[in-house]
């Protein structure tokens, strides 16, 4: 059922518009939803982040890594152990009109679409183009978000020569795919190449030893290597890859998990267990900055609304605010009991998502979500959530809602 936004939003001032309009008046509206995967039982909970109320729960086949698209219309639940990828329509859609965006809010909906395959792993989305990697298969699959929302994903594939734990980055007519280690495909990939969907290689292969971790920011996409980053840009729609080496001034180490800034074009990655590295590719070798953490890192996230800041959660139960300009931890807040990074990599530990003015942190041991005000950096609320709330993504934002 269509839910027109009610006047609980931050700017719910009715504005009369011209008589030629189909609508009687407009309202500013804000809506945020959280999607939380449970590690104890295979479910995804959908939560109204404003009301802190459960909207729905969807059964899955196994524990899921969650990925939201840049539009926020779709969340994908990658269930690697069960060989399945499920899709959820978040119910929140924006229609961009340049100077403003309209927001439509419907009930969320588990879509009747499921990809099955051998060990689905890395998921990458850019501008509505999606690449789903399967570690156990020798081709990556590509489709559009629109085709998923329309119920009929049109799958294209690109051959990757040998099954391996790699990644594909989707573009309209091309993809960038990792290159398997020719001596042992179970080892990390050795590089990346541009391919099209007719089986052709475009340009030269680019070395990227120990490739692992990828992220997009602005017009760039980056792949992390032991030697630096591969930076992918596009010229006339065709991806081009350039290697950006770690400068000699950095200590030994490399990133294997990357995130991209939203609103600012930068990348942030792990650099050993207790450091982060902030990378501004526009500054070349001068663009690398290390952030020292007080203990080992558990999780980190960028803030899409306050682009100057990122957040990192550490083993001692603290959430830290990172100024990406200075590379300093500007504020710290104890939220949970300690979480050790020893043990299985996939043990449930806190994860971070930013939903409007709230930083939301899952606390699987305490079976709750913590809500931290992003501006005051104080905990403002908690929400009990049974099970082991683990992976989390947030979708939503503000827009104009047209009323009849």
């Amino acid at each position: 059922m269509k839910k027109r936004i009610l006047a609980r939003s931050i700017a719910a001032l009715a504005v009369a518009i011209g008589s030629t309009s189909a609508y009687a008046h407009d309202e500013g509206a804000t809506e945020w939803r959280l999607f939380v995967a449970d590690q104890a039982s295979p479910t995804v909970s959908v939560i109204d982040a404003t009301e802190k109320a459960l909207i729905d729960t969807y059964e899955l086949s196994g524990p899921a890594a969650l990925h939201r698209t840049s539009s926020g219309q779709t969340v994908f639940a990658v269930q690697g152990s069960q060989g399945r990828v499920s899709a959820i329509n978040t119910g929140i859609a924006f229609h961009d009109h340049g100077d403003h965006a309209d927001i439509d809010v419907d009930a969320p909906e588990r879509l009747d679409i499921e990809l099955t395959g051998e060990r689905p792993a890395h998921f990458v989305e850019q501008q509505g183009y999606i690449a789903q990697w399967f570690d156990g298969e020798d081709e990556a699959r590509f489709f559009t978000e629109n085709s998923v929302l329309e119920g009929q994903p049109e799958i294209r594939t690109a051959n990757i020569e040998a099954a391996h734990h790699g990644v594909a980055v989707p573009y309209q007519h091309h993809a960038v795919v990792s290159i398997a280690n020719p001596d042992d495909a179970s080892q990390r990939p050795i590089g990346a190449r541009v391919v099209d969907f007719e089986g052709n290689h475009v340009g030269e292969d680019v070395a990227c030893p120990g490739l692992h971790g990828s992220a997009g920011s602005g017009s760039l996409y980056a792949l992390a290597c032991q030697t630096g980053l591969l930076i992918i840009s596009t010229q006339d729609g065709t991806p081009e890859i350039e290697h950006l080496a770690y400068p000699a001034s950095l200590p030994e180490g490399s990133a294997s998990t990357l995130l991209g800034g939203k609103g600012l074009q930068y990348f942030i990655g792990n650099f050993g267990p207790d450091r982060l590295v902030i990378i501004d590719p526009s500054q070349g070798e001068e663009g690398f900055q290390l952030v020292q953490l007080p203990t080992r890192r558990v999780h980190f996230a960028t803030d899409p609304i306050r682009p100057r800041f990122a957040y990192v959660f550490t083993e001692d139960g603290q959430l830290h605010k990172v100024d990406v300009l200075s590379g300093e931890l500007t504020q710290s807040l104890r939220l949970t009991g300690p979480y050790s990074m020893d043990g299985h990599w996939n043990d449930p530990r806190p994860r971070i998502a930013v939903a409007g003015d709230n930083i939301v942190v899952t606390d699987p041991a305490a079976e709750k979500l913590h809500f931290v005000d992003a501006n005051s950096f104080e905990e403002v609320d908690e929400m009990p959530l049974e099970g082991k709330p683990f992976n989390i993504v947030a979708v939503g934002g503000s827009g104009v809602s047209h009323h009849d």
Partner: protein
Amino acid sequence: MGLLRAVFTPLLVSMAALSAGAARANEPALKVVASFSIIEDFANQIGGDRIALTSIVGPDSDTHMYEPTPADVKAVAQADIVLINGLMFEGFLARLIEASGSDAEIITLTDNAEILQDPQGGHYHFIGDKAVFHAAPEDPHAWQSVSNAQVYVSNIAQAFCAADTAGCSAYEANQQRYSATLAALDDDIREQLSALPESRRTAVVAHHAFRYFENAYGLTFLAPQGMSTESEASAANVAGLIDDLQAQQVSAVFAENISSSRLVEQIATEAELPMGGTLYSDALSGAAGPAPTYEAMMRYNVATLMSALTPP
């Protein structure tokens, strides 16, 4: 690092200003940030060696689509003056200013210029083959008429004088000199284009960046509007546009330096029209290109138009 520098549109520090600043180490430079390359050139013309100038969006780059970097934020944080076009041209500006915490003077250079309403309420940009609608009630590409460029430089001179009274006479002298250059440029453009017959005054460009040029100099530019904002440009969309072109005496199709030429090349092929070259719309070229300054850009565009539109 060649591609990185070209693609990532890094901050371009005026080497002239740097060297001059070093020579006058006792005199603090006015720290100026220009939002994109055309404004950077205007600021250089007026500020000369009295300013330390940084540009955010570099040559051959699309300001509409730009994503600022941490280095941009730092530059704005340290600036005395930030020069912007306004009219929603710099979509990144609000978050850049907010992230910087800057208290610099923000000078909108289109203030007091003759501004055209956008009859379609916006215009299209292209990412690959995808048309993206940029809605704005007023057309931001005001620099494409030289008379408006005069307003830009007048606003810059006033802003520099207000912030650096000791340098005001130098700024005003520079403005006087450059204003004469612009007046001569305007006369040259009118004289050259007057040679085109009415039947050779219509062309196709990738996006509607040339309405001010059209309005000032009597040419007509069509752009592939009407295409879906939600999806890729389809063959049916292009076919519809081509039907329109054949009825409007279009003489040539032009690419733009800031975007892919793939779509306009497709239009030219299907409409059996010649590609007339590349026009510089929303950004200058690099120093080695044909349009490294505003004056060079306008002269290059006119030469390109004349070459393609002059009857054989």
